[in-house]
């Protein structure tokens, strides 16, 4: 089977500083792939290449190939707006837009699709249900998205990302700013999301990675030290470094 995403020999530079070294990674479709590693090892940097959000900053540069369904997306022919519709991203801090709950989720719909008002309303409901937040907000769809709790805001952002009908969802420490109960909800949600999307998640929480992911990539100093199915990584790692990290001996 063809990988959903395949990174081939990716190197990344912040100005003169090289942050990623020859990353190879192939991400399976409809699976959750966890990215772990000590702080500053390049997890976020790696993820931010997938939707080319790093291009916002002028001195950041990438080399190598990144294949989405076999097509290199780092080339100049890629339609960046369509790429970002196909690959959604959730950030560490929830980022609801300064508008109502409904409009937050309707925004990507109006942006990318030609839909009637009632179709938009239906899809907003669907997306909120998929993000398992519908029951909590169905009575306050018109109040500000900023007025929700942190955990609710994060699920609102997930609903917003889902509304764009992406194929891949990238999550960069989506639960690190959120309390344990809300975290649990989001973890359950991710397992659901796997049925429809390919999910990649950066996390510092070993249990989280072990609980929810199918595959795990261990990063160290900008290199992918080990990549395997999660069970193998956590029970029978091949590398000493991986073992040290997951058993909490460094990082």
């Amino acid at each position, binding site marked *: 089977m063809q990988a959903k995403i395949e990174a081939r020999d990716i190197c990344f530079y912040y100005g003169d500083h090289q942050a990623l070294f020859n990353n190879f990674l192939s991400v399976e479709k409809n699976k959750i792939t966890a990215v772990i590693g000590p702080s500053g090892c390049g997890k976020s940097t790696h993820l931010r290449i997938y*939707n080319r*959000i790093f291009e*916002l900053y*002028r001195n950041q540069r990438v080399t190598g190939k990144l294949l989405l369904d076999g097509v290199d997306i780092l080339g100049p022919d890629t339609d960046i*707006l*369509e*790429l*970002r*519709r196909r690959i*959604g*991203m959730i*950030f*560490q*801090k929830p*980022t609801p*837009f*300064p*508008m109502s709950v409904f409009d937050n989720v309707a*925004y*990507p719909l109006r*942006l*990318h699709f030609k839909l009637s008002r009632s179709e938009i309303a239906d899809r907003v409901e669907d997306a909120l249900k998929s993000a398992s937040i519908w029951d909590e907000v169905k009575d306050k769809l018109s109040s*500000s998205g*900023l*007025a929700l709790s942190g955990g609710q805001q994060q699920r609102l*952002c997930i609903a*917003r*990302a889902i509304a*764009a009908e992406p194929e891949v969802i990238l999550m960069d420490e989506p639960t690190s700013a959120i309390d344990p109960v809300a975290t649990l909800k989001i973890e359950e949600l991710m397992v659901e999301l796997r049925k429809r999307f390919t999910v990649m998640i950066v996390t510092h929480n070993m249990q989280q990675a072990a609980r929810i992911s199918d595959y795990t990539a261990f990063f160290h100093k900008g290199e992918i030290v080990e990549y395997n199915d999660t069970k193998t990584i956590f029970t029978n790692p091949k590398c000493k470094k991986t073992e040290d990290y997951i058993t909490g001996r460094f990082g």
Partner: protein
Amino acid sequence: MKKKTLFWRKLNDRFHTLFSAASVFIAVTGMILVLYTVVIRGMDAVSLDFFLNSSRPYGVEGGGIANAILGSVMITVFAAVLAIPPAVLAGIFLSEYPDAGRAVAVLRFAANVMMGVPSVLVGLFVYVIIVVPSGHFSGFAASVSLAVIMFPLIMRTTEDMLGMVPNSLRESSLALGMTKMRSILCIVCRSARNGLLTGILLAVARVSGETAPLLFTAMFADAWPSDFFTRPTANMPVLITEYTTNSPFAEMHTAGWGASLVITAAVLAVNIVTRIVFREKNNAG
């Protein structure tokens, strides 16, 4: 190790507290004194006629300040129309396109210089480039001079307010597939909306009392401001200056104070309303 005596630390603390309290007292007293003087001296002039009648030439009985109020409103509103769109866009440029390099540095430097230029020079400048070539004073020329003063104020507050919007909001809107312009206008500016509106209103309030540039541009007229673009236009600041410093008639002195009272009340109202309205919204979100 020798310990510092607590006595000195406490005395130090007392001293600073006292000093801050005294400073606040001086500032507030100053404001109250100004208000008090303006109210006492101007109260007698204020009546319904004062707000409804046009001003009259020297020595003619009666008359009000209605034409000056209307003229001032027209001059200020037109100045706002001229200044706000380009100033906000320039502020956006400064905040959101830092990669533009040299242009950003030049724009920011020019704005700083412009904010330091005395307003009388701005008046003189507009006098030379508009009033003299066109051959007449006009309300329009006055609007241009006020717009020139407003531009850097609004531009810098726009830049500051947008600068306070977290980068994650920009990234998340772009990550959703928005173009940069849409992300700036629909998400970033919207997020900073209260700050932007406050900045704009305070800039308008600030220039609405400017006098020096109007002396070179609008001048004054006892007529209603019907020829805004081609003739001298009545306005409050020049009316106050004329009536209180130039006129020999006691009645006009009082009218000048009355006009001062009106303009002070208006500026105060704009300030208070701005703060109340936007404070409430800020807390909500």
